[in-house]
């Protein structure tokens, strides 16, 4: 896909780990925010234990670590509008979308209307989304 002189590639960040026990979740978020400056076609996936990253009501006061979950709400400001959650991963964990934060973006082309960034997809649908990417980063 060409956008002026610039080549736009499809980049996907695949998040599969619970937060806080390892550094993967935070590292992924930082890379996503930095790479957002490059104006590429970015999507995020939360699958397997990665779905825990978006749990509502995280409170890290007692474990002495920074709670970075509020930062996911800023992704819309960084023009990251495609966030895929794998349905089976939620089900295996007894969770539903209602347990997760809502993530929104404002659509420039539609009078800044707020729209949902989150797409609930099945494993089979996710396989197709992954297949269409140029680059997939694994965290």
């Amino acid at each position, binding site marked *: 896909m060409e956008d002026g002189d610039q080549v736009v590639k499809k980049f996907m960040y695949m998040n599969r780990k619970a937060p806080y026990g390892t550094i993967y979740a935070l590292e992924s978020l930082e890379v996503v925010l930095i790479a957002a400056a490059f104006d590429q076609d970015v999507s995020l996936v939360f699958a397997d234990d990665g779905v825990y990253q978006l749990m509502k009501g995280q*409170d890290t006061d007692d474990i002495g670590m920074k709670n970075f979950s509020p930062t996911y709400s800023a992704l819309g400001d960084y023009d990251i509008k495609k966030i895929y959650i794998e349905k089976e991963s939620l089900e295996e*964990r007894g969770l539903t979308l209602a347990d997760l934060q809502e993530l929104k973006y404002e659509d420039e082309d539609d009078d800044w209307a707020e729209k949902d960034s989150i797409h609930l997809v099945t494993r089979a649908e996710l396989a197709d989304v992954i297949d269409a990417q140029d680059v997939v980063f694994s965290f």
Partner: protein
Amino acid sequence: MTMLHTVNKSPFERNALDSCISLAKAGSSILLTEDGVVGAMQGTSHSKKIEEAMANISFYVLGPDLKARGLSESNVVNGVKVVDYSGFVDLAADHESVQSWL
């Protein structure tokens, strides 16, 4: 001899909890910490293992790690006891040895 086993990895990601349950002797205790706390939750595809093992083994979960992950104490498998850090210390002191599963 009573042993306290600690598991700090998610059962969805590693089989440490499985191995721990199958090798823990009756009368011993298992404490779930860090990402291991997700194994304590009700209604997951792993909940049944804890429910079954609870007949012979006492289960504990570290409250601060639940709270950090937005997991509610009221949604842990029935019979799993929530402890804080000083409860962790008491458990370690009350058992003859501590085995950390990686």
